């Protein structure tokens, strides 16, 4: 009798866990396969590989335009996250710390770039720039990317600010700190998780972006996702997988950093 009840309790969980195992496989499969293929000792991508080698990684430095694209994307993503943090945090402070007419509406407005598919935002920006005679440069890329990353910062920083009890700030003011000191020494350290999460989201969104860059990039500059896209369509050997492998390791490092600094579940608002 007792074991029957036990089975009745655990059977649903067993089934659930089994299902989760399958989904886990589904989630990691494309990432694992890319890593495996990147070590394949073959001229074409197929599975299972006949042997393993590191030569595709050694080949990376010789891939046309790879390093400049990587540096461009890195520079762009860093600048974009800094800008988005600056614009997003100031706006979040206004939205959370003050009450004024139209606050809810402004919040929706600041989040609106998320609703539009980036490809459409990109086309609109392209047509806007061409009307004004603005040529595609690094600056246009910077503007386009900042635009779509502001919402991530606003979302994370407002969440952090709302969780912060303003009496801590009042205490600082009582003790004689001016508003700037209060912000720098009290508010800023307390909303750090939101800033880190927002900054990382902004960085990833920019670093990974294809659909905005596609319209706004100049002829000389090709951001990394566009470069990889180009390789995927034209290069048949596993060198593309090696490029991807490096990027995946890069992401894993980012996951670990996020986990260490703010905790993943907090960063994802779970």
């Amino acid at each position, binding site marked *: 009798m007792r074991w029957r009840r036990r089975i009745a309790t655990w059977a649903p969980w067993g089934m659930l866990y089994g299902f989760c195992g399958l989904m886990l496989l589904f989630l990691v499969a494309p990432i694992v396969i890319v890593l495996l293929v990147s070590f394949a000792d073959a001229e074409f991508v197929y599975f299972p590989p006949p042997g393993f080698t590191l030569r595709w990684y050694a080949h990376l430095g010789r891939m046309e335009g790879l390093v400049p694209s990587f540096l461009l994307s890195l520079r762009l993503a860093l600048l974009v996250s800094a800008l988005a943090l600056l614009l997003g945090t100031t706006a979040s402070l206004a939205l959370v710390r003050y009450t004024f007419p139209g606050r809810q509406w402004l919040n929706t407005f600041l989040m609106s770039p998320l609703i539009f598919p980036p490809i459409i*935002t990109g086309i609109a920006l392209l047509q806007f720039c061409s009307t004004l005679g603005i040529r595609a440069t690094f600056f246009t890329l910077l503007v386009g990317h900042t635009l779509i990353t502001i919402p991530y910062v606003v979302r994370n920083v407002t969440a952090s600010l709302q969780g912060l009890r303003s009496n801590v700030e009042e205490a600082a003011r009582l003790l004689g700190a001016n508003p700037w000191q209060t912000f720098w020494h009290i508010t800023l350290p307390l909303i750090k998780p939101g800033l880190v999460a927002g900054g990382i989201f902004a960085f990833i969104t920019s670093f990974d972006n294809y659909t905005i860059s596609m319209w706004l990039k100049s002829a000389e500059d090709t951001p990394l*996702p566009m470069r990889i896209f180009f390789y995927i369509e034209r290069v048949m050997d596993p060198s593309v997988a090696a490029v991807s492998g490096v990027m995946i390791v890069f992401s894993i490092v980012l996951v670990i950093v996020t986990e260490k600094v703010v905790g993943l579940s907090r960063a994802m608002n779970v």
Partner: protein
Amino acid sequence: MQRAYAAKASGASEAEFPLRARRGSVRWPGPPYVWLLIPAVLVLLVFFVLPLLTMIRYSLYTHVAGGMMQPVLTFDNFQHFFQQELYRRVLAKTLLNALITTLLALLLGYPVAYVIARGHPLVSRILLIAVISPLLVGIVIRSYGWLVLLNRQGLVNQALQALGVITSPVRLTGNDVGVIISLLHVFYPFMVLPLASVLQKIERPLEEAAMVLGANRLQVFYRVILPLSIPGIAAGSLVVFLLAAGSFVTPRLIGKNLTKWLLGLVEEQVLTVFNWPFGAAMAVIFIAVVLLLVAVYGRLLESKFAFVLKGKAS
């Protein structure tokens, strides 16, 4: 009038911060929130709202051969879109595929979200990392992973053949099946994360109460957990639908120009055909249709599930 308004609003903020140390701080004219908001709002107005308005204006122009356009105001582009069967079909196909992706994500995401919210802490943590990890690996690379997995000699075809499900390799790239599979993978976290966060907030005593009152597990799920998780379902499915309908990279890479989704056609018009007015019109139609669907969906949810959504309004 405007001034009086601002004074009132800043009065409210004074009340929140009773002690405003003016010493050492520069007094800027007007309430501080205006200065805090100006940079972000200005960037969005100039580089988001104005461009969208420009695009809407372009959609009313006509195209002249050679990539030029004529600034006349006409609805010809819109008429052309709905008259051509091809465009109507692609629009319907895009929306239908986005819907399929959303439903699959919901069905496959709910159990995982439940385990993240209620399962063993270690399992929950591993699952959370696994769910989030695709988000951090770029979309181009994830699509490449699926391209490798789904091609004729790929692991999926090999596995299906080994299991005896199919006798000869089936085509999984260059068609919508492959695109939906990879979109599901790409957007899965956007369904699971809101679901998990809502499920976590459902209080256990509620379930226990239902059990004590004689409900079995299935009944507890259908009568208590499922209705209470509707805000999560609503949020997750909305985001996944929007993202799937608006996707471009995955349909392009996995679909290999053999199956075009609507935004692929838009890109073609702008970049290859150089018919900017028609491309703009297609983009406008796409946004209008999607916004309309979202509005209808919101209304539907509100009328049917007002009792659970009420708390979420704030």
